[in-house]
Every structure is written in structure tokens, then in C-alpha cells.
């Protein structure tokens, strides 16, 4: 489901640490020990901690320590591997039935065994149309039914073959039925019933949904290595290591070392940095300016390490592909030649980022490394523009062209959402550059929701927006397929290419990873040639982490993984015995 912590924050083998003996020959690599706390920074309270109804990154990161799923991903190779399941599922030949066997040794944090009943309950809770979880539900739309084969085996029926179905089903957050539905109100309801008419649902379902929506905002429970301890509104969320965690001592399951995680709410980044320096925080994300100017002292370096990594998202300039000016791919290409993206990364992102040329994350195998990045080249751009027929015929300083029998000047507007300094700088940089070449740009800053509705209704010439990139197998269908250009779909710029449509469709049905890579390489080549967006850059994040932590490592896909962290016995700062509440 959501690419929550299951992927980044939690789980998975820290083989190097857990398995290696304390001393192997001359090379000493101390074994991790438990103890000490982690004080991490959050800018605001998580929205809520109900695993299904929350929808913000803050909640997901915290819940990732508490709730687990059937499958997970190795944080380094990103391979799917079993967590609460015994193995990856058995998939039927027609790719429409998935059967999972569930581990018999897993239990929830209250000690109750985790069985197929809990998995079945979890999918029912997601599918229940009255549960306030529309986002989660959309991913499971294709699940037509689910049944228990025996106490520890569950079978899912799927509407159509799709290679990400395994990831989707494996990602179901397994919630304890006895805790989230104590009266077992969903007992007699099937997934099939829940797929039907909501009006016909039994009273029990309504009662369950009402209880579930309201009763679990601040008291999550699951089977993960950390238990929810306390949430003081506006101050901190506290998790404690579960000493009875079912995975303890199992080499195939990730171990947790730190006794507590405290997520401290500090609304103000200056105060957060001061807190970090004074020891009231152990780790935080640094703002670019803080990185450049406020964290260079010897004292800081003595106490903290800084880690740089890419955040998997990108910013782009979207051209309305239906617009009389931008219909022509030569014009769009010229725009990319006129975007000095290297300079933007340097001045706008303080060099904390990388220029990109396509929608696929550059750490993915699907990414096409052979495509050359389009350089900043005004000469080439002007050639393309004049080739496309743009000339200043009336000498008013602005290029013009006869389009559809009417002379139009090269004037357009760039829209973006207010409050986003990066996007504003991009827009102003473009305005400045294009002005030199006879193109008049106006820049328009709009409130987020107003901006978004303009974008969805395609009321723009050009706009600046961002997408998150998938660190696992991408699926670009929603953004690039021509069907998504209608009905306010995510293909906001109305990009239409029949070959791309075919690729996107085939890709979803292709279960051979190698062939999928080939398909997406071709897709990237087409996008590169057509430049429907001017792809801009992917930013970097910087985290400062106290040096007393060991096992701090930037993952190949980016990001840190506090689950692996531990503190040598001599260096531990906090002890859980000192506070007994």
C-alpha cells in the first residue's frame, strides 16, 4: 500500500551487525547492543496514528515501527522478502490468485498470536467503504475477494493481472482484529460484500466503521519492534522497544536496538537546530542554509555527522501540450535548452541536488543512463524556435507566429503555488532568461488549492509542480497515459502518444523484470525526444546525526534507517530505568 516505513524506516536485515561475532580475527567489529534513546525532530504532530486513515508522511514514518505487513523490501537491494508471511506468495498461472502462508511464530504487542484472521480483517477494514481510508482503498480496488484456507493461509482474488499486485497485497498493514474490532463486527461480512453497494451493508459494518474511524487516532497497536507509548500533543510522540517482540533473535528479521524513540515536535527550524546543538535532539534534517552556514564549527563536527542523500522526488516545468504555443515539440525542446538547470541547482538548491532528464529515479534499473542530458544552449534553442516558425515579424520585441490562421505573440504565464520558494525562483529565472530571447513570461503565484484546481482543469500555459519518484518498481501509467488526461486525471499537461500508451499498458501486465526495463527505456527515449515537461532537478536532503550512534548509513536509494542504529554501552546517554513512568 503506501510506501511507508515498511520500505524505508523499518524492518529488514542488518546482517552485518546481528550475525557477525564480536571479534573476527584482527578486525574488530563490535556487536550492536541495546539501550539508549533516539530523540528525533518532527516539525509538527503527526496527523493521527490510525494506520489506515492517516495520510501524511509523519504518521507513516512512526507507524512503520509499530505495524508490519506480510512482505517487506530489503532496504539495500529492494528485493521483496517475507516478513509476517513465511515466504513470498504462490501466484496462480493466470496471475489472478495469490496465496500467502503466514508465520506461525509472530504475535502482536499484547502477546496475542497473529493469524490469518487478522490479515483477513485488515483487508476487510481497508475495503470497507465506510472506513475513512479512501487512499488506501484505491490501491486495493482490484481485490475481488479473500478467504482463509486454514488458520495460517489466506488467498486473495484479483480482478486483472498486474505485476505490482504482489507488492500491493504484501503491503497490507496487518492489524490485530481483537484490538481494532473487539466485537468482531466484520465477522460475517466478506470482501465481496464490501465491494458491493455500500447502502446494503449491514448495521454491524456501520458500527464497526464508526468505531474504527474515531477510536484509534492515538493508540496504534501492531506486531512491530516498537510499541506506542505516549503522545503528548505538540510535544512528543514516544515509542518503546518491545522486549517481547516476536522477531527478537531471528536472523531473518531485523532487530531493534534503541530502547526508545522520541519524536520531539519543534515547529521552528532555528529552535530545532539550537536544540540539536544543546543535546535536546539527536538527529534532524538540516535546511540548506543551516548546512552551509550554521553547522561548520569544530564543536558541531565533534558531536555530529552530516549525511547527504537524494530525496526521491523531482520538480518539473509542465507545458500544456494542448496549448497553441506548446503543441509543437520543437518549442518545448527549445524551452529545455533555455532552462539553465545546472545553474538552478547551484543557486536555488545551493548545489544540493541533481539535474534530471526523465521521470524515473536514477537509482532504478529502469533508468536509462544512455540518454544525454540536454544542456543550456540558447543558440540551439533559437534555431529550434525559428525552425518552428517563431520570428519577431512586427519588431515589437516579442516573437510571433501565425497559428491556426491567427498571429499570436510568444507570451505565456507560469503558474506555481505560493509559499514554495524553490518554485518561485525557478519561475523567475525562466522569466528572466526568456525575456532575453523575445519571449514574454508572466509569473503567477497561487494558493495551493487554487493552483491545484487550475492544474487539474488544465487552466494554465505552463506550471511548476513536483512528483515523488518510486524507489521500487515505478508505474508511470497515472501520469503519462492519454486516458489520464481526461476527467482531471494526473496527466495534467494532456500528453498523448499512442506508442507510450501501449508501453505503459504492456508494462503493467509484464511479469518479467528484464522486459519491463526494456519497455521503460523506450518510454524514456520517447519522453526525452518530446519534452512534454522540462524536467528540472531532484533535491538532496541532509541529516545531522549524533556521533554516539553506530550503524548510521545512507541507503543506496537514499535516506537513513534509524532501526539499525545503536549506541555502544559506554557512550549511552539515556537509560530507561532513570524514568519509570
Amino acid at each position, binding site marked *: 500500500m*503506501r*510506501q511507508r516505513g515498511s520500505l524505508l524506516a523499518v524492518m529488514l536485515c542488518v546482517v552485518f551487525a546481528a550475525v557477525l561475532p564480536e571479534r573476527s580475527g584482527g578486525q574488530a567489529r563490535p556487536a550492536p547492543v541495546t539501550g539508549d534513546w533516539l530523540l528525533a525532530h518532527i*516539525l*509538527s504532530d503527526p*496527523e*493521527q496514528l490510525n494506520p489506515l*486513515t492517516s*495520510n*501524511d*508522511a509523519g504518521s507513516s514514518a512512526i507507524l512503520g515501527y509499530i505495524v508490519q505487513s506480510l512482505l517487506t523490501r530489503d532496504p539495500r537491494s529492494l528485493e521483496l522478502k517475507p516478513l509476517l508471511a513465511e515466504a513470498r506468495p504462490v501466484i496462480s498461472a493466470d496471475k489472478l490468485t495469490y496465496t500467502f502462508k503466514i508465520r506461525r511464530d509472530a504475535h502482536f504487542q499484547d502477546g496475542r498470536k497473529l493469524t490469518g484472521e487478522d490479515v483477513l480483517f485488515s483487508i476487510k477494514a481497508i475495503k470497507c467503504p465506510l472506513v*475513512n481510508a*479512501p*487512499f488506501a482503498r*484505491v*490501491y486495493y480496488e482490484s481485490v475481488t475477494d479473500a478467504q482463509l484456507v486454514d488458520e495460517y493461509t489466506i488467498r486473495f482474488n484479483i480482478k486483472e493481472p498486474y505485476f505490482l499486485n504482489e507488492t500491493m497485497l504484501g503491503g497490507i498493514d496487518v492489524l490485530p482484529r481483537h484490538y481494532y474490532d473487539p466485537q468482531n463486527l466484520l465477522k460475517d461480512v466478506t470482501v465481496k460484500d464490501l465491494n458491493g453497494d455500500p447502502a446494503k451493508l449491514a448495521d454491524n459494518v456501520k458500527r464497526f466503521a464508526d468505531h474504527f474511524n*474515531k477510536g484509534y*487516532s492515538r493508540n496504534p497497536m501492531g506486531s512491530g519492534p516498537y510499541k506506542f507509548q505516549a503522545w503528548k500533543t*505538540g*510535544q512528543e510522540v514516544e515509542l518503546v522497544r518491545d522486549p517481547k517482540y516476536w522477531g527478537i533473535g531471528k536472523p531473518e528479521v531485523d532487530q531493534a536496538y534503541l530502547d526508545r524513540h522520541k519524536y*520531539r*515536535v*519543534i*515547529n*521552528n527550524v*532555528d*529552535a530545532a537546530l*539550537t*536544540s540539536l*546543538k*544543546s*543535546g*535536546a535532539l539527536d538527529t534532524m534534517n538540516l535546511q540548506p542554509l543551516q548546512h552551509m552556514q550554521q553547522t561548520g564549527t569544530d564543536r558541531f563536527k565533534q558531536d555530529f555527522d552530516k549525511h547527504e542523500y537524494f*530525496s526521491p*522526488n523531482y520538480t518539473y516545468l509542465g507545458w500544456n501540450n494542448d496549448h497553441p504555443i506548446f503543441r509543437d515539440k520543437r518549442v518545448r525542446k527549445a524551452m529545455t535548452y533555455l532552462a539553465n538547470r545546472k545553474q538552478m541547482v547551484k543557486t536555488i538548491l545551493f548545489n544540493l541536488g541533481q539535474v534530471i532528464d526523465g*521521470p524515473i529515479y536514477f537509482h532504478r534499473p529502469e533508468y536509462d543512463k544512455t540518454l544525454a542530458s540536454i544542456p543550456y544552449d540558447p543558440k540551439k534553442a533559437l534555431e529550434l524556435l525559428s525552425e518552428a516558425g517563431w520570428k519577431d515579424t512586427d519588431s515589437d520585441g516579442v516573437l510571433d507566429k501565425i497559428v491556426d490562421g491567427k498571429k499570436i505573440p510568444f507570451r505565456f504565464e507560469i503558474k506555481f*503555488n505560493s*509559499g*514554495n520558494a524553490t518554485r518561485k525562483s525557478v519561475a523567475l529565472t525562466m522569466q528572466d532568461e526568456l525575456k532575453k530571447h523575445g519571449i514574454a513570461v508572466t509569473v503567477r503565484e497561487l*494558493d*495551493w*488549492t*487554487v493552483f*491545484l*484546481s487550475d492544474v487539474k482543469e488544465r487552466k494554465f500555459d505552463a506550471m511548476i*509542480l*513536483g*512528483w*515523488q*519518484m*518510486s524507489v521500487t518498481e515505478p*508505474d508511470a501509467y*497515472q*501520469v503519462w497515459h492519454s486516458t489520464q488526461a481526461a*476527467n*482531471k*486525471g*494526473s496527466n495534467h499537461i494532456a500528453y498523448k502518444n499512442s506508442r507510450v500508451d501501449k508501453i505503459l499498458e504492456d508494462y503493467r501486465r509484464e511479469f518479467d523484470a528484464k522486459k519491463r526495463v526494456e519497455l521503460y527505456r523506450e518510454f524514456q527515449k520517447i519522453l526525452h525526444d518530446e519534452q512534454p515537461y522540462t524536467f528540472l532537478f531532484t533535491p538532496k536532503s541532509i541529516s545531522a546525526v549524533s556521533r554516539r550512534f553506530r550503524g548510521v548509513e545512507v541507503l543506496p536509494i537514499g535516506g537513513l534507517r534509524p532501526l539499525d542504529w545503536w549506541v555502544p554501552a559506554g557512550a549511552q546517554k539515556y537509560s530507561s530505568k*532513570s*524514568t519509570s*513512568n
Partner: protein
Amino acid sequence: MGAYLIQRFLLLIPTFIGVTIISFLIMRLAPGDPAELRAGGGLRGAGESGISTEKRGAVDQAVAQWRAQYGLDKPLPIQYAIWMKNLFTLNFGESYKDNQPVVDKIRERLPVTVKLNVLSIFLVYLVAIPLGIYSATHSYSIGDQVTTLFAFVLFALPVVWLGTMAIVFLCGGDFFFLFPPGGLTSIDYSSDWPLWQRLTDQSWHLFLPVLMLSYAGFAGLSRYMRSGMLEQLRLDFVQTARSKGLPERVVIYKHVLRNSLIPMVTILAGILPGLIGGSVIVETIFSIPGLGQLGYEAVLARDFPVVMALFTVSALLTLLGILLSDLLLAVVDPRIAFGRRN
């Protein structure tokens, strides 16, 4: 007096309804859709790091569901009527964010904000009244001019800046470590601590926020005090008091001070709504989980039930404050009459 009270009280009702209608309209006419904001990943997420490609497909469906659940698909007058109806049963509704009753959210944060504001009001009066008296009795002296200048310099300093400076320089960054950089209690704070230790820890945390909340108030209030006193000092009865040989101290503190406190009473009543609001910036800078912060975040997320509840409570307190100040004024100054006299 009874009739006057009832009359005043009845007048509050249409005023109150007017206030709620205007607040409701302003809130709704401002751009922004809570469902869309929530779909964008909440407040901080609003497009900041992009939207998830996969999620985007689900947005419209989610938004439609949320809008229906929040009742935002109904016409505005009906939404208002529903809200008003609920208000009569003292039901402020549930927050859009986490489906929790708004009343609980307010109750949870009320003590902190009231504590902060009561301390601050106390501090303002404690400093400003003596300052005003000094300025009035030594008017146009060097001392008066220096304190006045100082008070106005403080008044002019934005709290955002001064608060941030205080955190950077006094709270354990690269400079001094005299105060904590925010929050209410220490990391290892425990309810098992002895009372004095808990009190010390809390005061240590409250010191800077209270100071930041107060310093700008010194100027205004001391000026009121000063001008009130100067006005009285010019009156004939002061001359009389002096000429009959009363010591200056008795003249100032017994005769002049009492009379010049009347405007202070009026101002005090205006402070009532300030007890629950007015500290948005300070609460945000010092990460204090109070009502100001709640309101600020609710406005950004367009969490209408929370915003309306806060509006309503402060409107009520303002109206009560005005009523109270009218009554108090009549108590301290018998010349002010209740209503028409026969």
C-alpha cells in the same frame, strides 16, 4: 441594575450571531479546500516535495469522499445552519484532521495557554504600572524619557526576531545555554519528581516565552498609566490636597493613583479574550502546544470546525469582557449610571 443587565445581555445575542456569520463567511470564502489539502499529504506536504505519482490517481475519489463526510458538498447557508444547530447543544463538531471532538482538543491545550497568558498579563501590569507612575511623576525628566524610549524600542521589536535571537543566543546553540530552546518540560521530566523540581523545570521553560509575550505590552500600558496620571495631576483637587499640606506620597498614591486606575479597568476587561489567543507567534517559536498553535495550524489546514470553535470562544470572551468592563466601570466610578434614569 437588573433590567440593565438583562438588556445588555439580550443585546449580546444578535452581536454574537453576527460575529459567527461573518467568521463563517470569511473562513469559507477564502480559497482552500480542506479535503484537497489533506489529500496533498497534510499541511506540510502541500506539494512541497511533490505528490506521489501513484497516489495522485486516488486523489479525486478521496477528496470527494472527504468532502461528503465533512458536509462540504452542501450549500453554505445549510452548512452554517447545521453548525449553529450543533452549537446549541454545545457540540463544536469533530476536527477534519483526526475525527476527534474539537472540545477535547481545546480542553487539552487550554491550560498551557491560560498559564502563559496569565503570567504574561501579570508581568505586564507589574512592570507597566510602576513605570507609568514614575514617568508621570517625573514627566519630561531624563529618567522619563529614557524609560519611555526603552519601552517603545521594545514595542517596536518584532517578537519573531527577538524570540529567534533569544533561542539562537541563549538556548545552548553556539553561545550561552541559559534557557531551553522550547517545549514545556525537560526530556527526562517525570511526574515522580518532587514538586520543587517540577516547578523549577516548568518555570525554566516558561521564562522566555512569558517574557516574549510581555515585553511589547510595557510601552502601551505604561503610556496609559502615565497619561491617566498626568490628567489627574492637573486637576484642582490635587492642588487642594497639596495645599492642605498632605505629603506628596499621599497625594500621588491615595488621590491621584486611584482615580487614574479607571482606564486600566477598561483595558483589563479587553484582556479576557487575550487569555486564549494572542500567543500564536510565541507558541510557534517556542514549540508550545497551546491554543494559538492549534488555531494557526487549523487555519492553514482549513480545519473549519476547529477554527470556528476558536472564533466562537474568543467572540464570547470578547463580548463578556466588554460587558464586564461596563459593569466594573460603574462599580469603580459611581458617576456612570445604568441605563436611563427616571
